[in-house]
């Protein structure tokens, strides 16, 4: 395969572009996604290429335009609404949770709701408490939704293309910090990545590090440092939370005997809880130490950088957690 380096945003844009070309039913809508190209440049040039009918600037009405997208999905279109900041998902929750997620079930299978909701996540940009949150755990708590949390340009493109062929509602989380800062190889050739398949980003045998979205990157960096200490860490990226590839996670931990879960959503009642509980159950006989959960600190996200960075798991915290596990091995 011939590869190029793309940024995370470019990978997203390319997936949208290819699928818009492939399927007439797909259209993009959101605030400033059109002529402006999106505040994070993910729809750059698409308005010029596909026109105002398919790349649509909406009023500042999250509940309204996401509701509209749900209805369009039920009647044969495949809408791709964007929520500029994931924090605003609070405004469209009813349409996502009580409408999109349930319509198929409540009609006894009469409809499909192929809607792909693109939502940002992640802090670390000093954007304050209302522009930094990561609500993927909420979405994964809702039956009827599929939840995607890519960590690389390659995964983002392949998973978004899958989402755009899905007959179900998908909430697709994109960490804002990755858009321009994370670059990676993406093949020229067409490909998709199936939902429900975790990706082993690095193989290892002493401890399993399971990281979500952008957290994969500090986790890989931590694994590198640990390697220098002679500790072999396996890094796994679940890539989708619903469906969740429990098997890959459990097998890894059954092999290594220890796990750290790293996520930028709040720790309490969040993604780290589900993954830790699932692994603790499935790998019960193999765990040598308690599973370490590194979610974001349970405080509204502060503005001032030192405070904000203190709330987000980082390389140092991951290394410390690994040491807690290895030092505390009990069997």
């Amino acid at each position, binding site marked *: 395969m011939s590869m190029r380096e793309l940024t995370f945003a470019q990978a997203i844009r390319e997936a949208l572009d290819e699928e818009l070309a492939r399927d007439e039913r797909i259209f993009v809508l959101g605030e400033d996604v059109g002529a402006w190209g999106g505040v994070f440049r993910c729809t750059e040039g698409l308005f010029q290429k596909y026109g105002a009918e398919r790349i649509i600037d909406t009023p500042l009405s999250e509940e309204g*335009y996401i509701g509209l997208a749900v209805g*369009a999905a039920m*009647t044969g279109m495949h809408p791709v609404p964007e929520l500029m900041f994931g924090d605003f998902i609070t405004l469209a929750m009813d*349409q996502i949770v009580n409408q999109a997620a349930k319509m198929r079930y409540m*009609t006894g299978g009469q409809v499909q709701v192929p809607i792909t909701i693109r939502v940002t996540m992640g802090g670390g940009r000093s954007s304050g408490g209302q522009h930094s949150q990561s609500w993927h755990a909420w979405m994964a708590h809702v039956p009827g939704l599929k939840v995607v949390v890519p960590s690389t340009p390659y995964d983002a493109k392949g998973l978004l293309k899958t989402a755009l062929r899905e007959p179900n509602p998908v909430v697709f989380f994109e960490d804002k910090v990755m858009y321009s800062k994370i670059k990676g190889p993406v093949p020229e050739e067409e490909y998709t990545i199936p939902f429900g398949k975790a990706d082993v980003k690095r193989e290892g045998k002493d401890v399993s590090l399971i990281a979500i979205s952008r957290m994969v990157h500090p986790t890989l960096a931590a694994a590198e440092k640990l390697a220098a200490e002679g500790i072999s860490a396996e890094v796994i990226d679940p890539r989708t939370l619903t469906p969740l590839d429990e098997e890959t996670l459990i097998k890894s931990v059954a092999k290594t005997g220890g796990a750290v879960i790293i996520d930028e959503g709040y720790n309490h009642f969040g993604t780290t809880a589900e993954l830790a509980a699932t692994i603790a159950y499935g790998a019960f006989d193999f765990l040598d130490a308690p599973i370490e959960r590194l979610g974001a600190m349970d405080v509204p996200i502060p503005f001032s950088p030192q405070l904000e960075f203190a709330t987000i798991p980082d390389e140092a915290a991951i290394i410390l957690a690994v040491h807690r596990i290895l030092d505390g091995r009990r069997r």
Partner: protein
Amino acid sequence: MPARKTQTAILPLPPDELRELYRKMLTIRIFEETVFDVYRKGLMPGLAHLSDGQEATPVGVCAALRLDDTITSTHRGHGHIIAKGGQVEPMMAEVMGKVTGYCRGKGGEMHIADVSLGILGANGIVGGGIGIAAGSAFTAKREGKGRVSVAFFGDGAINQGILYETANIAVLWKLPLIYVCENNQYTEFTNYHKLTSGEGLVARAKAMGMNALEVDGNDVLAVYQAAHEMVEAARKGKGPATLVCQTFRYGGHHVGEPGTAYRSKEEITEWKARDPIPAFEKILLNHKVIAPSDIETMHDQIHTQLQEAVATAQEAPFPEVKEVGEHVYA
């Protein structure tokens, strides 16, 4: 209470269609009475939200619609569904939670849908169907076949934000979307006037930039005519409109609640004097569209049909537990 519009001498629809409107109104009435019975006999789970007294609005509106037009409905949705062509047998089975119901017993009384008839579903969230209706209108516009979308909602939904958010979009994008508000004067147990500021929805919709009109919601022909004009304008690309229909529910908010504690006897009596069915009957008789004996026959037929629907549904199985996990995803 709105003044009753006198009927024009010339009826707006051919006789067979008028008889069909009448049949549908009667079907709704008898359906609701039957559900009342079914509930009281303990033959259905959950609650029932009936619309007897309000039959003219859904029937008048749906008379202006094509098969491929869509509607979204509310928690009080039986009338809308029958008016759009829904069949009483799978409706009754759904109400009773049977696998032969429209939604295999998974939706229930508040969630009946028949997507093949353009019935995109009743909805338990007040105002919840409005976004879906806007989306269907969006698809309709894209398809370019003149199809329209109707959002039915009650007076309670007038104060849900999504109404304004979608109205703004619908006007801007000229969506073929008709907002139909059935104002039955009460949001559950509280009077409309206690909950709604200003001049009401017609004024609000006009301020959003769309055509809006209020009609006597108990006058099926008045409803039809207003809806027809709005629908035809929407088909031609003139954008959305709002129709407010003044009406009244006879029963309580749900079965088991008589609806008398918060509404005066006089109010109920006054509205019952304006019952949409005998009023329409009179017009049809006057114009010799229908004979008294036809009415009786029709009544009997529908009654029998409903009794059979209940009997069949009673014998039908509940969904098997093993299908509880099906239809979550496609």
